[in-house]
């Protein structure tokens, strides 16, 4: 996987998970967190992050509010809504199932 590519659909899941663990966070914070968690293997394209946030907001999975960052900068803070929490749980489960399935497929010598 090249450094910039993110599997389609996974960015939204990452954003939701980040908001779950960190609580309300602004776009920059989310980006940093995702990059850190990936251990530097992932550099986010902001051209996909912000549209993804907008879409999550439109879908009602996150809410947004203007507030002050740690460095006293005005920033838009995103927060998980109850619907977003449910969505995250469901998607996590889906994802785990997919990974498990693919794992069984891809483990060498296990093909029948």
């Amino acid at each position, binding site marked *: 996987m090249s450094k910039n590519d993110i599997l389609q659909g996974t960015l939204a899941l990452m954003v939701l998970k980040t908001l779950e663990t960190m609580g309300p966070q*602004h*776009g*920059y914070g989310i980006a940093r967190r995702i990059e850190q968690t990936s251990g530097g293997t992932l550099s986010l*394209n*902001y*051209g*996909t992050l*912000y*549209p*993804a946030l*907008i*879409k999550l*907001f*439109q*879908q*009602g999975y996150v809410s947004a509010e203007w507030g002050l*960052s740690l*460095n006293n*900068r*005005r*920033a*838009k803070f995103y927060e998980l809504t109850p619907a977003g929490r449910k969505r995250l749980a469901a998607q996590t489960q889906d994802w785990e199932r997919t990974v498990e399935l693919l794992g069984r497929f891809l483990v060498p010598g296990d093909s029948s």
Partner: protein
Amino acid sequence: MRGLRVWLHRLLGSLGRDRRERERELDEELRSHLEMLVDDQLRSGLSPAEARKKACITLGGVEELKEQCRDALGLRVIDQLGRDLQFALRGIRRTPLFSAVVVLSLGIAIGSNTAILNLAHALFTRPLPIEDPGRVVALYSTQPDLGVGTPLSFLNWLDLRQQSQTLEPVAGYEWESLAVETPRGTSRVPAQLVSGNYFQTLGVSPARGPSFSPAADNVLGAPLEVVISHHFWQNYLEGDPAAVGRALRINGQPFTIVGVTGPAFTGLNVGLQVELWIPFGVYRQIYPESAWGWYESRRGVIVYGIGRLRAGAQMSQVRAELSSIGRRLERDHPEFNENRGVQALPIAEATIFPWARPFVRNGVVLLAAAVALTLLIAATNVANLLLLRTRERRREVAIRLALGVSRGGLATRLFVECIVLSGLGGCTGIGFVWLTQQALSRVIAYIPSPTAGPYQLPVELDPLVFAVAFALSVLMGLVLGLFPVLTALQGDSSDALRARSDLGGGEARRFGLRNVLLVTQLALSFVALLGGALFLRSLSEIRELDPGFERQQLAFLRVDLSTTGTPSNARTPVRERLVRSLSALPGVERVGVSPREPMDGGWSRPMAPSESAADPDARISPYTDRVDAAFFDAMGLAFVEGRAFTLDELRQPPRVAILNQELSQRLWPGQSALGRSLVLFDLEGRASLEIVGVVESAKYRRLTETNEGYVYMPLSDDYEGLLTFAIRTSGEPDSVLSAAVSETRRLEPGLPIVSAQTVSQVLNRSLWGPRLAAAFLGLFATIALILSAVGIYGVISYDVTRRTRELCIRVAMGAERFDIAGLVLLDSGRHYLIGVVAGVPVAYAASRWVSGLIFVDLLDPYAIVGSVLPLGIVGALAAWIPVRRATSLDPNEVLRTE
């Protein structure tokens, strides 16, 4: 659900103020992102300038980023729509003829449909302008031999009003024509006698004035108060601001105006304007004593009851209570209430007299079917034209697709174009609505109304109807758009790019849909034309019918003696004076008198030949008339045997009768009727009528009636008050008629003239039904014809363009111009034939439904020729233009450019 939510967000995001707000927010968010990046770089020890540079590089192209966010926000939806709209308008400008034809077709179709829809809404579904109309009911008598919608007798209504627990209050009204003296002279206007609580019951308060005083509810001796309509106020009193309190002389009595209604409330019957409302309790003052009888007995049914459901009461409770009240009335007054009950209908079902409702509904359904047919024809027409254009544009579409326009975007663009076209069609339609309304109200004024005023079509357009018309045009745009969009998007684009033009033959199969549309359209037009032709033929056939009486040198002058307050025993001198003066006018030959006018309904009464009076099977119910001695001469009816009434017979209650030949032959075939007698079973008992004469048969109620038997009885004093002078003239009746009108005005200034018409006017007016049907179906047939011409032109014209190469090769190979024309015309001829043949079963199915409405045979040869021929001629003419183009092709020129 989430999808809808996102879509809504996007739609809102692209609008006006919200949009700027979102842009600003997006700006600020990205800026704060950048600042935080800078902060981090500074913390890692870079200089401010370097930190900013690094941050900018990390963030990347801000404009591109913004653009992506705008996409997600939906800010670009409107921009895109604007571009599509521009594209559509450009397309319309580029092909003005095509666009005009499409817009006009749709406009005519949508307009006429909207007008008919508006009419149907006004007649059947528009709520009355009264308070909570759902809780108001209309009350009627039920009696097996009286039919639906029979009013109540006055005394029954009074009892009902006192006894009902579920209806509170109960009010009533009765239709009358009253003579009112205004600055413009004495006029006879439609009016109602009402209970004093009429307006309270309906929850209608007058726009001006206090309305009736409490004493107006008295059954006897109510004050002389009148509420006038907005229409009356404007038209007879010039909108006098001091109208309330003003005196108004009605039937010779001094009334005081106590209210003026608002413009919306015209009474409870749709299309019938009530001009005056006066209390029931003044009947003794305004009527001659002969009419009191209606108010003082249970015999005559005159009062239309209305009631408002008491709070909490259900319709089922009302029905149950009314049936028990009905039974009680029947038990207490069996002499008149035998088999008579009481019935409640929702007021919405009483706005058209219940007995007339089915006729009105059939008429509206017929009109609706005609305009729906027009809509179908226009739709097939437009679909066909759009399809043709899409074929022409295949290359353009292919290029656009090849250049990377998404199929979705292209489809949206084509849809927007169709919606714009049908939207323009809808706008044109509004103009057409107006035209149709004008035509409708003009014809509707012909319909004889049961009141002194004419029917007035509620012409104002309802916003609801407008909304439906708008939705209809957008829907048509979407549906019509489907064809071209599907055609444009299917198939391989490289195919279209390669093929410059098709060499005929091989492509023919692909045009299946187009041919089907054209044939459908021709079939529908044929049906519309046949319908129009049948109704026109029917009208001309009816016109040719012989009424049996004089049809040229005759005029009728009607007056209403009941409204002058003249007691019935004083009427005869008035009548005789008028007859004498009218007979003395130059040009008048004879003046006869009868209460009724020909072609204006009539009463049948139960009778039997006296030799078999005891046998119930021998009963007959011929229509009757009361006439004076000169009547038969004036009408031009010759005596077959016997004589006219003598002066002596005319002054007494009827003891003698004159039959028409039809009845005489039916009762005593081959024998003389003179000296025989009939028994008249009247409500008062039996009367014997000796037959003194037999006259030629003539039509009585309508031109289309067949073999009706009539009994003429001597005119004595006890008629209701309407009187018709039949004036036989020696020349044209028009000038004599106006002289007769002014002579009557001079002799009896207070006597209202109900109508003054020549015999041909009377006959013409009586044909309002066939005329109305013929006018409208003829109009719609013409529209269908025009639309078909356009359709044929479009298809043949496209065919010629498509086959240019083929035709040129033929010409180059030595084909004559004549052969080329034949080739193209053959094609349209084939369509025409298939269309007509396909129309036959449709016409057959439809004709069974109208068979009761037309007066000619369904296979009337004139009508068939009259529908097939115009369609053929117009089709040939429409095809001729492209055919001429085809025959004037220069093969060298064309083949070189191809």
